[in-house]
């Protein structure tokens, strides 16, 4: 029984990781056709960085992810604090809305935001992308911070208030240090989600602000492009670093 379950686990992990390994290996393949091995080469990485439009899209994506992660971390942290500390009318509704954003298919969120932006006459571009990305990152930040707050000793903020600290001062000096690891983990997740998003961005981006996932999308719809192997490998390594950082921050803070 034991070896059976072991080999089953191994098999599924293999299936999950084989395509990723293939992609990484082929990104160093010199052959133009993309299927046969033509020796090691960095030519696709080279052609990637010599492609001006590609590099521009990369910067655009990085800037978008940076700003979207930051804004969603700030709003998400405040939301989590409000849900945790304050009693207010409609708390359950607020909670419900966050849950719906997280669970509903991305495409539903995407068209609803597109509708809003077009009716308001907002030009599709950086601003519309930012608003949309912050919205879909928000619930993930809220959950991460809430999880951190749930095991927290309630007497500390009360003591701070009793000692005369205002709500703001107490939040800054007592709560903020406690939720810091969750904020960093939430920021990293938001950054990665924003960097990788295709579905929502397809709807709310305009020609004035081209981002990386959409550029990849237009490249891979027709045939195979060796540059995509290289770009995909870079993105994978990038995401992996972010994930490891986040795991590290969270596990350290538990100790």
């Amino acid at each position, binding site marked *: 029984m034991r070896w059976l379950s072991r080999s089953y686990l191994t098999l599924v992990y293999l299936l999950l990781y084989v395509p990723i390994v293939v992609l990484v290996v082929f990104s160093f393949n010199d052959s133009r056709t993309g299927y046969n091995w033509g020796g090691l080469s960095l030519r696709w990485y080279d052609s990637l960085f010599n492609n001006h439009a590609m590099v521009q899209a990369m910067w655009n994506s990085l800037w978008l992810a940076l700003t979207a992660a930051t804004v969603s971390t700030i709003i998400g942290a405040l939301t989590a604090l409000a849900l945790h500390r304050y009693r207010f009318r409609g708390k359950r509704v607020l909670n419900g809305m966050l849950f719906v954003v997280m669970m509903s298919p991305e495409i539903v969120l995407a*068209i609803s935001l597109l509708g809003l932006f077009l009716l308001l006459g907002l030009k599709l571009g950086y601003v519309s992308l930012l608003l949309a990305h912050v919205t879909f990152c928000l619930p993930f930040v809220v959950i991460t911070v809430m999880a951190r707050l749930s095991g927290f000793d309630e007497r500390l903020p009360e003591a701070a208030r009793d000692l005369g600290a205002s709500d703001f001062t107490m939040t800054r000096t007592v709560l903020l240090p406690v939720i810091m690891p969750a904020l960093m983990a939430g920021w990293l997740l938001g950054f990665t989600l924003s960097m990788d998003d295709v579905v929502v961005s397809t709807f709310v981006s305009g020609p004035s602000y081209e981002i990386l996932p959409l550029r990849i999308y237009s490249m*891979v719809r027709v045939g195979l492009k060796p540059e995509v192997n290289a770009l995909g490998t870079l993105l994978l390594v990038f995401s992996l670093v972010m994930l490891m950082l986040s*795991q590290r921050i969270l596990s350290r803070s538990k100790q």
Partner: protein
Amino acid sequence: MMRSIKQQPFRAAVLVLVWGWLLFLVLAPNILVVGASVMTRNPSTFISLPLNLDAYRQLFNPLYLDVFLHSLYMAALTTLICLLIGYPFAWALSRVEKRRQMLLIFLLIVPFWTNSLVRTYALKLILATNGLLNSALMSLGVIDEPAQLLYTEGAVIVGLVYLLLPFMILPLYSVFEDLRQDVLLASHDLGAGRFATFKNVVVPLTLPGVLAGVMLVLLPAMGLFFVPDILGGSRNLLVGNVIKNQFLDARNWPFGAAASIVLTLTMALLMFAHRLSKRRLGEEGA
């Protein structure tokens, strides 16, 4: 009310910001979609009066109904395959010693953090006519000519399963983690055989995990329009492709909105079932 704002300016500012964001970017857009679905298509302003249910009627137009049913079929098959692979997988995973489990869970979260478009493209490298799978099968002598794997229904389903499997496994893993060994032993001691224990104890106790997994797989499996775009050719469309075409190309908002509402209602139904199953367990446990 005025007093509380004066006393706690920070609290007031936080609540205004949070509510403002959610009302403006979550509630308002969703109301807009519901509204759009019962309005009339208009080329210049996208939507206009009068109100009508034409968009919903159009969903039953045989042309679209076929696409919807086919999409539902592919999504259901994807979900079933994910469940069949994921259920024993999550069970086995929950039995691995704790220290190794951390690493294995990490390996499952990696896909969640990596670009799904890039991973779909990686599948294309393998499934292409002169791709790795065909070359491997030919060199093993299983087939003589490359088989058409790409641009088929099978390719779309493989792609969806590949992308969504972790979303099935994670909730299942969490219910198997909570499944206590002594419950199984008790069932055994009371004379239940393996099958009876599985059917009467394991399945009901893991049902909330199954439903959560189904919810997380079935809906994206209808919405991830880039999977058929990359792997499926023009015949294997998802509801997501229809919504995207109606909104971005055909500019038929009412129809796209109606299709999206059908997706949302499906989600609501699944959430309701999930809640119900959890509540039932809670009552029985108490």
